[in-house]
């Protein structure tokens, strides 16, 4: 160990992390530039009711709403969204919740096998590229579930995939 009052070192900076020479960062999105018709409240899709009450299994309808609304912002109002299988968030999706009051909550035997862990939330499928953004959401489990991966994200060559 050597004290250096004023030393110069080389820090390797992988190109895939850089945008304009700086390690990629972005401010949390506000979606303030989007018109209201680009935002969907997940609880107001009449044909696909989502309860968010911590009791009803909302898995199927949440997945359908995501699949049918890529490119929109899906808003999850305060509530606990009980989910028994993976929620798949496709490329082009933007998810926003009510900060510390909106929960994806895993429940059920599909999440209980530690030798075959299953994702609660999966950003994209293998081979997908594009943008996926999640902000102001909480991820939790409703039981002891040793096979639950809260969030799984696949690596992409684009720096714009962001989880915040």
């Amino acid at each position, binding site marked *: *160990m*050597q*004290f*250096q*009052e*004023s*030393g*110069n*070192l*080389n*820090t*390797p*900076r*992988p*190109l*895939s992390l850089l945008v304009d*020479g*700086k*390690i990629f*960062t972005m*401010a*949390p999105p*506000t*979606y*303030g*530039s989007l018109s209201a018709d680009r935002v969907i409240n997940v609880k107001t899709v009449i044909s696909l009711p989502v309860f968010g009450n911590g009791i009803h299994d909302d898995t199927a309808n949440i997945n359908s709403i995501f699949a049918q609304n890529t490119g929109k912002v899906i808003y999850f109002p*305060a509530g606990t969204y009980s989910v028994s299988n993976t929620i798949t968030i496709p490329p082009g999706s933007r998810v926003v919740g*009510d*900060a*510390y*009051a909106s929960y994806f909550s895993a429940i059920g035997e599909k999440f209980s096998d530690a030798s075959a862990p299953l994702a609660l939330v999966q950003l994209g499928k293998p081979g997908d590229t594009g943008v996926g953004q999640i902000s102001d959401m909480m991820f939790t489990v409703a039981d002891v579930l040793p096979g639950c991966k809260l969030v799984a994200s696949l690596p992409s060559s684009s720096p714009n995939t962001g989880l915040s």
Partner: protein
Amino acid sequence: MGTTGQPAIVYLPAGIYKMAKSLQLYRGTVLLGDATQLPTLKAIKDFPNDHIIYGKDPHQPGTNNFMIGIKNIVLDSNNVDPASQITLLDWTVSQATQLSNVIFNMPNFSTGHKGVTTQYNTPTAGNSNVIMNDLTFNGGAIGMDVNGQQWLFKGMSFNRCTTGMNIVSGFNVVVSASTFTDCFTGIDATGASGSLTLLDSNGHNLNALVRSSNSDPAGHFIIVENVKSNSKTVVLNNNALVTGDVSDTWVHGDTVSWLVQSCKVCG
């Protein structure tokens, strides 16, 4: 009701709100302004309290102050005498909190105003905040007067503050993607006990971007990486050790030579 029985998302529409006394936040409270037109909370001339917003829930020690947030708000003390001791926001909080997209407007180079402090009324418990990001500080004696443990400060902008960021204490502080313009001092790191890392940031028209003390053995480490500066960049004990840009990495402190290895994945 316990500690999570009364969460609240408080939404503020656009407008200028005259503040005649302070706001108190509690665990589970998120204050959210209109993102398209930030509302302003503006203190009156004879503002009676020492903070405009108390972020710390007084029922809990700072280290247990979880699930509190403030976003998309402007705090303004321009009507208050520049010599008055006023802090716009107390943020003596812990993890699972968020403070982002907030603008702190204070009289330029005022002697008494501070934007954020983190050591309010906690003689023993301190705080355990981990991140503040995308905040703008205009004017003031000190933009951020921070006393804590570990932090990432990302995307900060300091303009016309006498001191942008004053590290009262902190053992692991990383400042990234931030700009310091027309301030006397960008970051005063004298109180840091571990390391300060300044990364991917700019200093423009400052007397010093990083100012601190100097000792051997080092009382703290300073790492400066990919920084642009048109004036003195690192000043320790009044000596300018670095002036101008740092395109790679400059360090002050103890280095261990076996850590310097060839990089297999860089492009």
